[in-house]
């Protein structure tokens, strides 16, 4: 069974067709990079996976999208529960205006079934996983807004990990960060692939090459090329892909 499987997925926003019959499969514990020029549909595809597009007016979808073999757009699926299994990190750090501790505990408190001692444990665990614990363990009560951009983004990753998802979505997670913070996040992604399946949108082709196992190239709503990252960058099959990865457009 694939972790993620898309079967002829098409998406419309009103009359605008944002995705056109996209099909792909992703194995467990793999990192999938979605690349392509702005407006190509890669973010739309990412946001399909935790049903974040549901709130957008005029959103309509056809085809099937399966996570762990389950059709996530079937009427029985509650998006709230889906999102506990599919975590998301955004293109900018989005710390809540609370303390560091409360930020990480936020997702845990929503479920209302953990004791405070368990929450404390999971917070520490998540912060360790996100390689943030050593930097902030003495300042858990401090406002999350006082952290640096890179720390904030790792905090957001920790916040997502605390809920224990199995699939992690990242929407250009380093686009607002400096090179050093970016390197730390990439290192983190490298470690997280042991436990999680990760889908990451990136504008940076070197990044896609560095961190991913699989790469998908989107262009004008269509999935142009999809394959193992190694082959993808050394031997692209499609002329559009070659033009894009060699920087001739986009």
């Amino acid at each position, binding site marked *: 069974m694939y972790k993620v499987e898309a079967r002829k997925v098409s998406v419309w926003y009103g009359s605008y067709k944002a995705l056109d019959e996209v099909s792909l499969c992703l194995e467990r514990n793999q990192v999938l990079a979605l690349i392509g020029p702005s407006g190509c549909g890669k973010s739309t595809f990412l946001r399909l996976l*935790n049903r*974040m597009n549901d*709130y957008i*007016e005029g959103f309509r979808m056809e085809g099937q999208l399966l996570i762990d073999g389950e059709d996530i757009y079937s009427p029985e699926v509650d998006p*709230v*529960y889906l*999102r*506990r299994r599919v*975590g*998301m990190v*955004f*293109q*900018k*750090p*989005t*710390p*809540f*205006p*609370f303390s560091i501790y409360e930020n990480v505990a*936020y*997702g845990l*408190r*929503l*479920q209302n079934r953990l004791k405070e001692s368990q929450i404390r444990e999971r917070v520490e665990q998540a912060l360790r996983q996100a390689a943030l614990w050593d930097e902030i363990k003495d300042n858990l009560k401090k406002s999350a*807004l006082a952290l640096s951009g890179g720390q904030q983004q790792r905090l*957001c990753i920790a*916040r*997502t990990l605390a*809920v224990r998802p199995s699939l992690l979505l990242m929407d250009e997670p380093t686009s607002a960060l400096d090179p050093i913070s970016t390197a730390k996040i990439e290192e983190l992604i490298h470690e997280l692939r042991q436990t999680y399946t990760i889908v990451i949108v990136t504008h940076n082709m070197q990044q896609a090459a560095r961190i991913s196992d699989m790469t998908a190239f989107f262009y004008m709503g269509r999935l142009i090329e999809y394959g193992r990252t190694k082959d993808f960058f050394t031997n692209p099959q499609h002329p559009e892909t070659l033009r894009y990865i060699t920087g001739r457009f986009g």
Partner: protein
Amino acid sequence: MRGRWGQRFLQAAALTTFLVLGGLTIFLFREGLPALSKTPFEGIVFAVHPDNPVSTLTAAQVRALVRQEKRWQDFNGPDTVLIPIYLANIERYVPPTASIQEIRLILDSLAEFPGILFALPPALLPSSVKQLRVEWEGWKEIFFSTQWSPTYEPVPAVGFLPLLVGSLWVSIIGLAVVVPLGLAMAIYVVEFLPKSFYYPIKILWELLAGLPSVVVGFWGLVVVVPWIQKVFRLTAGETALTAGILLGWMTLPLMASLVEEALRAIPRLLEESSYGLGATQWQTIWRLKLPYVFPSIATATLLSAGRILGETMVVLMVSGNSPLLHFSPLQPVRTLPATLAAELGEAPVGSYHYHVLFLLGVILFILTLGLNLSAYLIHPKDAQAAR
């Protein structure tokens, strides 16, 4: 060339506004502060029978005497009835057609009574009487007296506490109405109202904001007052509660607009982060959005309090206008601004009453300024979170 004139015009306009506001404030203080140093007895002399051993009384004691709450004996005076004679009751003893000689004659004979108390201009005072010193402690009278009857003769009562308590009651009730309703309205509009309904609702709500307060007051008088009277089985429905409810409704658009604006300013990504962690809409509202806009809620509450505190017309119409110290919201009250509106027209310019009313204006000014300033100071500064 034209640009420079345009700039000069704007400068002049700004300067004028500033000068008018400054002048207004200075005028308010210049007319109000003398109430603390002046006495209400200008041109009036107190006098008693020469055999009366009492030589000094406080204003409160004289007031108690005239109101027959105390007797001369209570102040080691003669064991007789008090006969007070002052400008407001002189007609009881002197026919209006009397000449000045006749008035003098009548007053001279009245001065024979051992229990007499005169409070008259020196020219009318009989020569046989002994002057009585009446001590007036402006601070104490204004800030600690619990009575407000500024035209009472011969000694007015100018304690503003009953008016302050009236204002507080109305404000507290008003806030108790406007804060929960305003929050509910803002949340509903932002979270649940379908877009096509937004503009009609918003227009209605702006209309409510622009409704003349006299119209609100009149509606309150005809609809809310009888309703309160019936529900609480009161003899009169004009109470602090009535005024508070109406003012809360009136301030609703302000409160709701401010909170709505703050809710809409929450970054989209922050909201999605909450949903992304598996929060429901309700959880996102309670655990993220309300804490996030808390500074704005506090600001809106303080601004609403300022509006409620300063509102005049509605309270004048539905609060019952009773300047007595009450501790129940089901009693008629009178607020500070309602007092100004009701009494300033009849207070002679420069009189003690006039100055005291302006002092109330100063107090009101300081209160509302304080509310607005603190609202300004706690203005959301975390708004750039997650830019």
